[in-house]
Structure formats: structure tokens, C-alpha cells
């Protein structure tokens, strides 16, 4: 699964020119950090759904088939865990871009 995410991330970034990769990478890291910090402050289901929706949108752009896993999340901790994982995977490919 981890290698799948890594492959998808690489596949996504390699589609773009060298000049585009860095801004895209920075935007992705910034959004993941943003979702991560907001997930720690979630107070109600509406806010959680909003963050799930944002995360789902990002995953779709990255061609990651995680819709079902995201829909199944019921607690902020689950979302936080998934976002953390994604963040680690994104950080791991930084030197390859």
C-alpha cells in the first residue's frame, strides 16, 4: 500500500515539468499540514466531514483510490492518521523530484 501511494505520488509529479513540480509539491505539503492541524481541533461531525472532503479531493488529484477508506472514517484520529501517513510519503519523495 505504501509503495502504491509512493508510486502514485511520483506518477503524479512526473507528469509535470520540472518548473511546475516544486510549486505543486509545496502546495500539497501546505494543504496536508493545514488539514492535519485542523483535524486536531475538530469539534463536530460537520467539520470532520469538511476535512474528509478536502482530503478526498487531494487524493483524487493524486489518483489515489482512497474514497472508501476516507468515507469510512468516523473520528478525527483516523483522519489524522491517514493524513500523517500521506505526509510521510510525500516527504519521502521530496529528494526524487
Amino acid at each position, binding site marked *: 500500500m505504501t509503495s*502504491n501511494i509512493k508510486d*502514485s505520488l511520483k506518477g503524479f509529479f512526473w507528469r509535470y515539468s520540472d518548473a511546475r513540480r516544486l510549486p505543486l509539491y509545496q502546495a500539497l505539503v*501546505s*494543504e496536508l499540514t493545514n488539514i492535519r492541524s485542523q483535524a486536531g481541533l475538530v469539534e463536530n461531525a460537520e467539520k470532520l466531514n469538511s476535512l474528509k*472532503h478536502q482530503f478526498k479531493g487531494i487524493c483524487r*488529484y493524486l489518483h489515489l483510490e482512497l*474514497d472508501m477508506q476516507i468515507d469510512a472514517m468516523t473520528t478525527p484520529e483516523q483522519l489524522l492518521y491517514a493524513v500523517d501517513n500521506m505526509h510521510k510519503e510525500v516527504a519521502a519523495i521530496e529528494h526524487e523530484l
Partner: protein
Amino acid sequence: MNYKFSLGSYVCICLFVTVMIMGVFTRYGLNEFKHNHDKKISTLMALNEENYLQHKLIINAMRSFFKSSDRVKEADFEIFTRELLDDRTALFFTMTPELTLGYISDDGFVADLDKLEISLNKEGMLSGDLPHYQLVSIAIDEPSMPYLFYAIPLDNLLFNINKLKGTCLKYTTVQLSIKNQDCARRTTNKILAFFRYSTDLDISVPEYNFYYILGIESQVSSSKLFEFSCILLSILIACVLISILLYFKLINKYLFINIERENKFNVAMVSSINHEIRTPINALLGYSQILKDMPKISDEHSAVIDKMLWSANLLYSVAENTLNYSKSTAGGLMLNSTPINTLQYMDSIKDYYNRLSIPADKILDFNVSDKLPAVISVDSTKLFQIITNMINNALKYSTGKTVRCHIDICQRLAFHENVASGQQQSPSSAASSLAASQNSRGYYLRILIQDSGLGMSQSTKKLLTNPFTVDAESQLKQVSSIGLGLYTCNQLLTQVGGKLRLHSVKNEGTKIMLHFPCQFDQAVPSQLLNPLLLRSTDYASMRVLIVDDNSFNLEVCNAMLEDKQFNTVCANSSKDGLVKFVKVEPNVVIVDYQLDVFNGLELITKMKFMQSNAQIQYFILSANDKNEIVDSEHYPDVYFMQKPFNTAIFLSCLVSGVASQKA
């Protein structure tokens, strides 16, 4: 539905209900028995009353006899008493004022009177006691014999106690206790004794000095008890049978719910596995393509890569088919039509086969009719899947060399009228769809796939309806297949309102005709494929405003559009979007649905109020389906696109919008 079946609780409930029913019936039966006993008591009381009246009549007759005669002679007394008493064993005798015997109704009893004890009370009334007799003292109007006694033998005081059959009667006085014959037949059976009722009646008639206890004991007859037991047993058996039937019914329901749940779980499981499988397949396809595009690849390696691509593609088809098979068996398939640029779409299918390098000994002749409209509304994902599935099947199984595919459009009567209502439609297709539903005619993409092989055997044709048919006669049985493709395509087409027709002739080949539902805007009928294409230079003149509060999504969308030479402007909030909208006067606006202050539709409403250019095209981007967005139906001129942003779909919609404006 939260439904948990517990055998223990079910048995308890059945047992409780059975005991309740049995209890109610037993209580009813026992009440009936008691009621019968009470009826016997009533009869006994009536008989007793009648007996008492008879004695009273006799006494009154004697009193009248003495009253009506000046002087009663002994002979008259004897005749009258004999006539009055008839065959009764009672006795009348009179006493003189000196308390000596006067007259007696039967001289034979004179000896019995030796034991007579007489006393006079304070009121001057005479009373007496005679063993084995009940004495009634009567004052009469006869100076020489003022006292008359009516002596009734104790064993005759009562009515005939053998009159009540089947009932034990006991008569008890201070001196005597008598039972009838039924008391002797009393059973000693303990069970029967439970159904025995006894009552003691304390009878007291002070006027005649009658004091006795009348006991009645009635036993429920064995026949009644048998009848009662039979009914009780029948109820018990009926309750047990009903419980067993209900048990099986509940078990069936429980199993049905479990099967239904397992089915759902299986579909979810297959769906999940499918998603998991497709990611590495995509990677395999991607890496293979990268390898193939490398400059220094030998022909030999290139052939291996082609085979890898072909196999990965087939594997991808199997994954898609499995998912669709699960969805179709669960009835969850639905058309999700979006406008597409027909030429670009058909080119993408051709490209797909160009990239795949089909098997070396096969030729694919792909032909698209030039009568196809430039833009049609169709579920492009399912159409792609069906076309590629059928072509792949033909390439894989046909023994002929050439596979032909011809695509055109036709209008005809609907195959399945009820399916049309479940389809999701794009704004531009609403009019044509309405017209189609009015006359039950609709537009269909007609796809003919033809090969020139040996044709299909009868068993292979059965794959249309049974996905797991094994064709023992097939010459290609060495090719592994579970036949999901043909079956799934047939099911998929049927469920979305299309049709799959198969015609196969031995040694001539197979023809498969697919009708796939589509819509197109009849307002632009003359716009055929080529004239409508926008050139890249047209894109450069278009200003596109992208509004998304997610910087990554914004960046990706911007990158994709810039690659197509669009002139883009980005806004990372709804307020920023409004400011830039006024400033740049865009031709196209793409808005994320979930924004910070307003949602996408609210922002578009505000932009429409402010717009000076009447020809702005609006797009909504959302991770959800269109039908999940509240009020989406109130914005027919807004195009809904699902994330991720897809340039091809965007261009199709853009072309369609431009065509409408030109028309």
C-alpha cells in the same frame, strides 16, 4: 435493521405463550367443572325446598282437618292420616292435656313411642324427642287432645337422595348420617380426586325444628376429563407446531438478512479489492509506457513491453468487470452521463489500442461514422469499458485475423422505458431527453464489433446469461476465462437501458451489436465532428478564473489548464474570487463547491449579478456526485465536474457551450 436471533429467548417466549394459552384453557375448564357442581347444588336445593313444602302441606292439612271438625273421632283420624300420608313412613299422633297418647295414625308404631320424651316450654308449647324420628309439634284446636305430633323417620326426612345420579349426597343430623349409593363408588385415584368438588349446606328450619347438614360431592366424569385432556393436548401440539413453524420462519428471515448483509459485504469487498488492484495495474501500465518511450529500446524488448502492456490492460479489464459484475448483481449500476467531445473520445479509444500494441497476428479496423454529433452526453466510463471489453474479447478469442469496430448513432424506441428515469443527465441534454421520453424514442450509440473467426459455440453464447459457463467444445479452451466480460457487458447494457445482440455463424464469425443510450442537443444538429473543434490558439484567448481555497487543488487545476495554453487567473478564497472576477472579466469560471465563506453555487449566483459579459461559462468542481449537491438542479447552465479536474471533460463541456452560444 438491528436483528439478533437468540434460540434461548425464542424458546422462552414460545414456552411462555404456550403456558399462558394452556393456563387460560385449564382455568376455563376448571370453571366449567365448578359451574356444573354449582348447578347440582342448585338442583339439590330445589329438591330440598320441594320436600320441605310437602311436609308443610301435610302439616297444614292436618291443622285444617282438626279445625274444621268439632270433634275428631279416632276412626276419622286414622282414615284421614292414612289417606294423607299414603305410602310415606311418617307418623301422626296426638297427646292429651295430661300428656298421654291420644290418637295414632298407625298402631304399629305405639311401641316406638315408649322412648318419647316430652317437655313443655315457657310459652306453653310442647316439644319432644324420639330416637330415629324428627318430631314436629303442632298446636290444634281440640280441647281433649291439644297437641299433635308429626313424626318423620330421620331416613325419610329428605327427598330420595338417590335421585341425583353421579353425585355423592350426604345427609347429617345430630342423630344420624346417611349417604347415597354414589358415595360408595367414590374413586381413590389421586388425579381424579383433584377434579372432585364438595359442598356442605347447613339447612335450618326452626319453625319445624329441622336442623341438618346436606353434603354434596360431585366428581367430574372420566369421559369429561378425557375430553378435557384431549383438548389440552391438542392445544399443546398446536402451540408446539406453530412454534416450530415460526422458528423456521425466523431462521429463514435471519439467514436471508445474513445473506443480504454478506452480499453487500462481498460487493464492498470486491469493490475495495478492485480499487486496490487497479492502483498497481495503473503503475504497471505507467512504468511499461515509460519503458516503451525510452529511446534505446531494442525491438525484442519492445515486443516484451507490448505484451506486458497488453496483459496489464487485460488485467485491468478483469478488475473492472469484477466490480461491475458485483454492482450489477446488487442492482447498483446507474448511468452518469456527461457531455463529451465525440471525436476526442473516439481518438482516445484508438490511442488506447495504439499504445497497447494488440497481438501481432491481429488487426483492428476502428471506424467512426462522420454523422456522429460533435458533442454527445454519455456515460463515457461505462461506454469505454464496454467497447474495449468487446474488442478485447474479439482480439483474444477470435480465430480470424481482423476485428472490425464501427460506431454510429441512431434514434429508436427505448429498450427499457423504466431505466431512463434513473439516469443522471447533463444540462444540455435535458431537452433532448424530455423529447425522447415523450415519444419513447431515444438516441443510441450503435457499436458493431465483427470478427471473422470460427464463430461461437452454443455453450459460449450462454455466457451472455451465465457468466460461469464452461465451454467444453471450444477450441480455445486453453485460454483461461471465467466469462465475466460478456455477461457483465450484457448486464450493464440492460441495466442502463441499452441492448447487446449477438449473432454468430459457424466458420463465418461473430457480430456483436451494442446499443448504448446517449443524448445530444438537437438545437445544434448540423454541428458535426470536425467543424466544432477548438484550436489551442482559441484557448489562449480565453481567460479562466479558478476559485479554490485548497492551494494544492488550485495549483493542479492551474497547471493542467496552462498546459493547454489557457490564460488562467487563480483565487484562493471566495472573496478573492469576486474581486478577480470584476478585475479580469473571465470567459470561464471554475469554482470549487466547498469554499470558505460561500459555497460554489452561492459564489456563482453573486458573480452572475455582477457579470457584464453574458457569455461566461461556469463550472463547479466537487468530490461528490452532482446528485449529492443540494439545489444543483436549479442551476441548469452550470456544468458539474467531479474531482479530479479532467481536461478532456472540461474541453468537451467548453466545446459544447461554445456550440450552443454559436447556435
